[in-house]
């Protein structure tokens, strides 16, 4: 099992992801610099980590989508390779068109950093298959632009095709406006593409996956990916 973590200028969760995969799960993990038009075929999955690539200039993810490595990521994803984008990685995936919708500034216009609960809406995906026994995950968010938006048509298509994988909820799994931290449409915290091999999520699973920490729900996302197919 081999995985790659793409590093953009301004990525700042790349080391956290590396630590979890390399030292906690003992997976062969490689960093890929954004300037490499790397061949990703050898990897079992690719992670686009959180951070502030290119300083979030213009829009979060807008410049990163033209990084040389993104050609390789798009190619890899189009061939069915599994790609997980976390936070800024999610923003890059929507900007590049690999995922539907867009991420706007939080409705509070404030940066939000706290643990939230998310409900797993579908477990028949490479990213959530280990969540069947635990449908509510406690995972931290840390973002300014996490307010998910999609047109009515796109949202309906996504719902019909079970592409909404995570929704913000309370500790018991109830989805409500009060439990929606950033104003996301339909309380969406994570989505997949139609083929379910690309996922983006605003919460940071790598921040709740180290056994030194009491919250370990983020492990389930990585365990799902690591699960032999």
């Amino acid at each position: 099992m081999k995985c790659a973590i793409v590093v953009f200028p301004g990525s700042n969760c790349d080391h956290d992801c590396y630590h979890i995969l390399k030292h906690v799960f003992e997976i062969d993990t490689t960093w890929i610099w954004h300037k490499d038009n790397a061949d990703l075929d050898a990897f079992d999955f690719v992670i686009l980590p959180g951070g502030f690539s290119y300083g979030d200039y213009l829009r979060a993810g807008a410049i990163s989508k033209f990084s040389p490595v993104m050609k390789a990521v798009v190619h890899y994803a189009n061939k069915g390779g599994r790609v997980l984008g976390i936070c800024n990685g999610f923003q890059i995936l929507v900007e590049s068109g690999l995922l539907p919708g867009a991420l706007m500034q939080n409705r509070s216009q404030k940066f939000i950093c706290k643990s939230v609960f998310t409900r797993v809406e579908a477990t028949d995906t490479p990213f959530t298959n280990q969540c069947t026994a635990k449908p509510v995950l406690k995972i931290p968010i840390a973002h300014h632009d996490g307010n998910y938006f999609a047109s009515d048509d796109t949202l309906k298509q996504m719902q019909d095709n079970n592409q909404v994988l995570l929704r913000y909820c309370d500790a018991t799994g109830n989805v409500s406006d009060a439990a929606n931290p950033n104003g996301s449409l339909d309380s969406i915290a994570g989505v997949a593409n139609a083929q379910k091999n690309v996922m983006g999520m605003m919460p940071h699973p790598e921040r709740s996956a180290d056994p030194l920490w009491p919250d370990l729900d983020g492990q389930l996302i990585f365990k799902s990916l690591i699960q032999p197919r």
Partner: protein
Amino acid sequence: MLAKVHVTYKKGVLDPQGKAVHHALSDLGYTEVQQVNVGKYMEIRLEGVSEEEARTRVREMCEKLLANTVIESYQVSLSPAE
């Protein structure tokens, strides 16, 4: 040539900054304000292209990079460089 590009949220997309500014203007007594949209303004200087080419190419820039057409719309106006 100078291209002036305005990027704003599409109708129906909630603009939290516009809402906050509207609120502040109301507090200041500008009760006639009905709506505020906050967007981006960009100036792009171009050389060696006709006005028609400039229009086509700047619109292309908007589609590719300057605007996210899922949530934003854009307006381009051209004028001779100052």
